[in-house]
């Protein structure tokens, strides 16, 4: 593991991605401590204050300090988006690999089911699940994971089908290895590259999906300083106070860029062929 980390740091993308993510982690852990004011403190005189002076990143329609809200909001936003993505992509990857390994009728059955699930738009599916399970952050996370899994299963299966044809898989079958070993030890490590990349791209989507759910009142509940929720609430004041969108928007973009860079770096670092 330390070997991978060392190689990750040696690539410029990996090092930069890791640096950005380190900042985000720090914000998650220390956000409330460094936030200048209480994120939920309402200041009627400061409503729609532009950035500068008292409010570094401006103030929202209730006069709450944007910087504080962003710093504290990282705590609600990031862990849930990350957990949802990891859960969704990992289960999708396992489903895709198993499907490719089993082949034949099982493959048909699994993939057609996945097609059926994919026919429902991700947001609608998430809505449906949250409605069934009840609203709240944890259920929203589960819903996002379920919405992500089918797409991931498709991507993984296409790679796994090629891996399935490789002689090392044939060799494992010929010596009578169990299915678990073949799927998890022989095949999965060789399909991990597209999974990692897809995962890192999807973290940003997860943030947005979570925001949408929150906006509809099914995810985080106001007045929680969740980034997506902040953007949703600010959309009515776009022309009066664009900074209400810019602040959390940049935070989400930074998250996305950080994970994407990390994904690029990981792709190189996880490849044992890479001699750098």
């Amino acid at each position, binding site marked *: 593991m330390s070997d991978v980390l060392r190689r990750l740091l040696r690539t410029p993308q990996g090092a930069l991605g890791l640096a950005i993510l380190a900042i985000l982690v720090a914000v998650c852990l220390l956000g409330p401590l460094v936030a200048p004011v209480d994120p939920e403190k309402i200041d009627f005189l400061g409503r729609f204050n532009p950035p500068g002076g008292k409010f570094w990143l401006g103030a929202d329609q209730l006069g709450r300090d944007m910087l504080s809200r962003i710093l504290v909001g990282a705590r609600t936003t990031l862990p849930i988006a990350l957990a949802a993505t990891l859960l969704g992509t990992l289960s999708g990857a396992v489903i895709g690999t198993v499907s490719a390994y089993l082949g034949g*009728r099982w493959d048909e059955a699994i993939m057609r089911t996945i097609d059926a699930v994919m026919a429902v738009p991700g947001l609608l599916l998430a809505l449906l699940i949250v409605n069934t399970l009840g609203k709240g952050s944890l259920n929203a996370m589960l819903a996002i994971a379920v919405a992500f899994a089918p797409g991931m299963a498709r991507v993984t299966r296409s790679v796994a089908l090629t891996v399935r044809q490789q002689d090392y898989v044939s060799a494992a079958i010929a*010596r009578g290895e169990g299915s678990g070993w073949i799927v998890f030890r022989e095949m999965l490590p060789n399909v991990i590259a597209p999974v990692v990349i897809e995962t890192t791209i999807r973290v940003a989507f997860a943030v947005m999906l979570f925001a949408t759910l929150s906006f509809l009142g099914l995810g985080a509940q106001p007045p929680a300083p969740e980034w997506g929720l902040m953007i949703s609430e600010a959309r009515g004041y776009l022309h009066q106070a664009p900074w209400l969108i810019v602040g959390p928007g940049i935070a989400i973009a930074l998250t996305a860029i950080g994970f994407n860079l990390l994904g690029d770096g990981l792709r190189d670092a996880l490849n044992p062929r890479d001699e750098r």
Partner: protein
Amino acid sequence: MNPVLAIRGYTLEYETAAGPRRVLDNVSLAIDPGEVLGLVGESGSGKSSLAWAIMRHLPGNARERGGAIEFDGENLVGMDRKRMAAIRGRRIGMVFQDPATSLNPTLPLGRQLTEVLIRHRRLTREAAWREGIELLRRVELREPEALMRRYPHEVSGGEKQRVVIATAFACRPNLIIFDEPTTALDVITGARILELFRRLRQETDVAGLYISHDLALVARVADRVAVIERGRILEQAKADQIFIAPTSDYTRRLVAAVPRPERRLTRDRPGPSPVLAARGLNVYYSRARLFGRREATGARQISLQIRAGEILGLVGESGSGKSTIARGLTGLARFGGEILFAGRRIAARRDMDSGYRRAVQVVFQHPDSSLNPRHRVGEILARPLRLFGGSVGDIPRLLEQVRLSTEYARRYPHQLSGGEKQRVAIARAFAAKPQLVICDEITASLDVSVQAAVIELLLALKATHGTAYLFITHDLNLVRQIAHRLAVMRQGELVDLLPVDALTSDRAHPYTRELLAASPAPVGQETSSVG
């Protein structure tokens, strides 16, 4: 007479992360009009790099360090793109190794052939079409009109290569570069392609650069032969002389490593009792769909027996079902009929218990894909030990057995050469202490000197463990050196099964004799009547 192509002191390096790597070192060659120069070398010798240097299609990290490539008196090095585009395809043609990938699968053959004519000879579409049909007729393809409309996947590999050759000859070039044009084809198809090439040469008087790793082939095709090793030309001589009286040690070693059927490498007799027998074996390959299954029979009604310590050679053209048998015997494909093993009858895949799996091991053709790239050699060898009983402490011994040092256990497959990977695959098979090892074309992708070493290793392992081999190959010369008996396959059926010394007798099936005639005579002292 001025040479068509003259290469003088050409040096080429590739920029890599580990510093510059020299692939061609002060290469000087000349090809006269109408002459074919053979270029022989093992993998990594720089022979393909030379072809691409002549075609001016080098990768971005290539650095030319001096020298000249003169084509018809003009230096190609440093020539601008536009003028080079007029030469490439028009005056220098090229035929690649694998016809399956050198044709565009989304265009009909006719379009690909006429494109060259329209571009370089400025023919109209109709005239090009007529000329295309004529060209296909010249490369001895039947029904050229229909063929022009077909897509590459609708014709065989041999036909594809003929179309590629027709394209190369289309603009009556002065020089054609052949990069292993028959390697991807089976013996008989390859022999016919060579015959075609010889005829076309007489008709068109084109000069050729024929690149190959196969000494016998080059000796047959070329007028002169140059031997290249690690980017250096070691020697050049007439084709009928070079392998009989080689001047460099390297060439001598190459010639010595070529399999020669009369030099038998096995002298022992197999034991009396059979290890494994197949009776009326059918092997299917199929893909079960949601509704019904589509199935094809890859091998039909195969009956054969392998005795303890025996080497049974299994030969045939590509697509004859040799590998399908291997897949059936190892339980990778569904089969019908029965397999008899250790007094037990095995009628389906679920009958193959751990005992059978242990006793019957397989080594695959491609060393690159038979080892999991994400596992270290140590882990790869540990698996069979864990499954079939044995301790992980045996790994150093296993490595020593295949003559690799024990530190290889810590390496990843990509850090090994092709021959070393194949040794690891063999070690993995022997970790299970098998009674039968199925070798599926295990030396096909290796260089001739590496092949010799792997074969020697297999025979040494057999001498210590008394293992039987089912040795699947398309190389008759090789299998005649080591096999006790030969099984010959054609189109999924076993046509012949005979002791190896009866191969040249009247007992052999006519098809067996045809195969034998098509396999190239090995080069070297004893068989100077090559050609």
